[in-house]
């Protein structure tokens, strides 16, 4: 009990509270600006934390992380540009809602869903985290490989209307993920002698191109020279009545569980949590066809899922020293800066600090309701009041600056441009873009896992299937791929 009071006393001191509030506002701002992302923001922040108290530094990390994961929903809903990769699934129903004048309602749903997902995730981190983290010790390279494959198959099959094209896009994404130096042997692959390709295709560059340029072209094609009026946006009127909250409860519960489960699996991030939550909500719905056309449940599922991943992704990072995603890796960096060694000993040697960080993850999730709900959302929502043709060059500029600041290379601007044109054409011919992005993210992990598994088994491929967990994941992946074929066969028979 004394420890709990000590933790609360430390966390609620002026410094950490100020850090959490300021960072949450900054986080929403960063997440809402396409091209900026929490990874970049936290990476920029880390060198500044050397002179800070650990709980001030970690409070800032928690605020930026949770704030930006919600902030990513703002452009996803208003402009169909995911501010963060985890907000891709939010675009599916958020943007159609905005198009029919329900932007404020969609933002409110995103705000509540993000907060609830974040709180659930923080509670999981504080309570069942250590127990769940122990389970991941059972995972070997084969399981990691199948987790990646399961995620790819899930997205390839479930997103879009054509499973074959979805799987084709997923395979292309995995292939693009092999560009650059081979992590295990150092062999350059598909670099064509270009030094800038040695580090591979930058995810954010591709993401901004794929997801920002097609809507920019669509805006130009529509040539809207009037813009939406304030009444069209209904920003002031939107509320989330109790009946809505009740209706979202099953979705929030399901998505929170999915997000937490995905979060504790190393390598799987908020984007996968959002996609799986979205697909689960779609499958559970009595009207699945309305998903992708502005169903509020889609926004609730995606946002709750991706925020439920946040704190949960810290479970393997804090307990095992294995980062669940890039941000968790940066948190490990923040701990190391302050001389703290992540791993099982951290809980015994620095319980106040670990507990404090867990509480900060909880409090910054709750802060979303205040910061995201009131101020930033309304500020950023105003961009829709500008005529569409004015937004076209402005988004192009934001894309350019966002992409340029990642590596400081002009070539990245052209890669983004090429990816955007490809994305525009692929969308028109019903090839979903999400599997390409997911392939880029999971590709390197999948390859390293399968090669490690084969190294361990001295080249015996049955190693990938002989362990019960890997066999179960392989079967689930196969079932996912075969499901559309069975469904089509049944439909034909009927």
């Amino acid at each position, binding site marked *: 009990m004394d420890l709990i009071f000590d933790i609360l006393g430390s966390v609620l001191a002026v410094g950490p509270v100020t850090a959490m509030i300021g960072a949450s506002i900054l986080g929403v701002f960063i997440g809402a600006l396409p091209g900026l992302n929490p990874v970049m923001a936290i990476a920029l922040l880390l060198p500044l934390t050397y002179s800070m108290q650990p709980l001030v530094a970690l409070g800032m990390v928690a605020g930026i992380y949770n704030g930006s994961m919600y902030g990513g929903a703002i452009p996803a809903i208003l402009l169909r540009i995911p501010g963060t990769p985890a907000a891709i699934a939010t675009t599916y129903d958020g943007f159609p809602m905005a198009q029919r004048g329900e932007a404020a309602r969609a933002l409110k749903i995103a705000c509540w869903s993000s907060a609830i997902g974040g709180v659930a995730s923080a509670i999981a981190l504080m309570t069942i985290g250590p127990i769940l983290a122990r389970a991941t010790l059972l995972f070997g390279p084969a399981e990691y490989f199948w987790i990646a494959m399961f995620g790819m198959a899930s997205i390839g099959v479930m997103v879009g209307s054509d499973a074959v094209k979805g*799987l084709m896009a997923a395979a292309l994404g995995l*292939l693009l993920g092999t560009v650059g130096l081979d992590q295990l*042997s150092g*062999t350059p*692959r598909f670099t064509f002698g270009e030094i800038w390709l040695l580090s591979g295709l930058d995810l954010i560059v591709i993401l901004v191109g794929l997801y920002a340029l097609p809507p920019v072209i669509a805006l130009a094609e529509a040539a809207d020279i009037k813009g939406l009026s304030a009444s069209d946006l209904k920003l002031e009127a939107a509320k989330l009545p109790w009946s809505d909250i009740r209706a979202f409860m099953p979705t929030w519960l399901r998505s929170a569980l999915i997000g937490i489960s995905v979060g504790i699996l190393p390598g799987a991030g908020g984007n996968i949590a959002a996609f799986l939550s979205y697909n689960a909500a779609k499958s559970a719905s009595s009207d699945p066809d309305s998903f992708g056309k502005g169903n509020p449940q889609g926004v609730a599922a995606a946002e709750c899922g991706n925020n439920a991943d946040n704190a949960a992704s810290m479970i393997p990072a804090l307990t095992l020293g294995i980062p669940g995603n890039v941000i968790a890796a940066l948190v490990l960096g923040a701990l190391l800066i302050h001389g703290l060694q992540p791993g099982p000993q951290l809980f015994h040697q620095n319980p106040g600090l670990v507990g404090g960080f867990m509480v900060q993850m909880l409090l910054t999730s709750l802060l979303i309701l205040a910061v995201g709900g009131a101020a930033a959302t309304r500020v950023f929502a105003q961009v829709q009041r500008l005529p569409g043709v004015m937004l076209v060059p402005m988004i*192009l500029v934001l894309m350019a*600056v966002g992409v340029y600041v990642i590596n400081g290379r002009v070539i990245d601007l052209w890669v983004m441009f090429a990816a955007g044109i490809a994305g525009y054409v692929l969308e*028109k*011919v019903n090839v979903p873009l999400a599997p390409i992005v997911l392939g880029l993210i999971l590709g390197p992990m999948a390859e390293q896992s399968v*090669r490690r598994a084969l190294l361990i088994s001295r080249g015996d491929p049955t190693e990938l299937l002989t362990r019960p967990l890997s066999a179960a994941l392989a079967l689930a992946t196969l079932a996912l791929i075969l499901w559309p074929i069975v469904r089509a066969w049944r439909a034909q028979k009927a």
Partner: protein
Amino acid sequence: MTDRRQDIVLGGVFAAIGISAAVIAAGYPGASGVYPMALGCVVAALGLLVLGRAVLSGPGKPRILIDHGPRVAITLGTAAAYLGLVPVLGFYLASALLVVLLPPALGFRRPVFVLVNAAVFVGIVWLVFSIVLEKPLPTPFWSAY
């Protein structure tokens, strides 16, 4: 163009990408090439599946690729020119030109609004990226002299 023809082209392009990747990957030493080669084969196989499915399907239905060709050409052409000018004129000047010139090219006829918007917008970008975040952005070529 019908969806059938589009899918034939799409499948052919993916098959070509997959086969090319597999052939290139076959030349990589040791295990480095096995995974990309396998992926190339999968991409090629799925591309051929899309192509074959389209060939065997009926006459197909029209599917619009570009809703408004001239506007798309103006936008992409201007965007390409902008990207080309960023390293020459510097980020801010090139961006200001883009924000001022593209809306009129797309039919927007309120010059004062455009100019004010451009000034405010570029100012905000400068404040965020150059002042707050202190990110180095491309400068005009003459700044080197």
